[in-house]
């Protein structure tokens, strides 16, 4: 039930920062492919800055919890609330975006798909939670 509070400290630090660095490179490559080369530098700066904070964030509880090398029931509760908040905000933004796009005479895509994915995954998670 209660797990060790220090969860693979060293590994989590490098996995987290490496993930952000790789994601930054992937987004930058997509920008080059999409002829948006002007956005490459800001993208890399943003992603590599987050990667650096995760790698060298020191003893800050927020950084250690975010990168996953500090874990206990309170941090898991915070994580759950943060994910729920972000999910609700994303679905709300998708619905607003869909309505605006439809009002402009467009199909509402891709906001329609995002709102549908958010809504259906919420319902599926709800049903799963009720049954388990």
């Amino acid at each position, binding site marked *: *039930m*209660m*797990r*060790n*509070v220090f969860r693979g400290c060293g590994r989590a630090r490098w996995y987290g920062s490496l993930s952000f660095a790789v994601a930054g490179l992937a987004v930058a490559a997509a920008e080059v492919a999409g002829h948006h080369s002007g956005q490459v530098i800001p993208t890399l700066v943003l992603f590599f800055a987050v990667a650096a904070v995760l790698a060298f964030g020191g003893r800050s*509880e927020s950084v250690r919890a975010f990168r996953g090398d*500090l874990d*206990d*029931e*309170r*941090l898991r*509760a915070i994580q759950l609330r943060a994910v729920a908040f972000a999910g609700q905000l994303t679905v709300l933004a998708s619905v607003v975006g869909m309505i605006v796009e439809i009002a402009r005479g467009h199909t509402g895509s891709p906001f329609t798909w995002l709102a549908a994915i958010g809504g259906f995954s919420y319902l599926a998670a709800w049903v799963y939670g009720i049954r388990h």
Partner: protein
Amino acid sequence: MKNRVRQLRTERELSQGQLAAAMSVSRQTINSIEQGRYTPSLPLAMKLARHFDSTVEEVFEDDA
């Protein structure tokens, strides 16, 4: 939720870090419990109570 964790901890001359290590939680979680900002789960509340040779009711006060 009001509780006697800080009182019981200081009586036993334990630091927050030592209690946190014994409970397998972070020091900040012990601090949050002592401040009443975080209500622990039942397993953690029971573990804390056992650590202080008390019952959950003796450590935690139901202020509802």
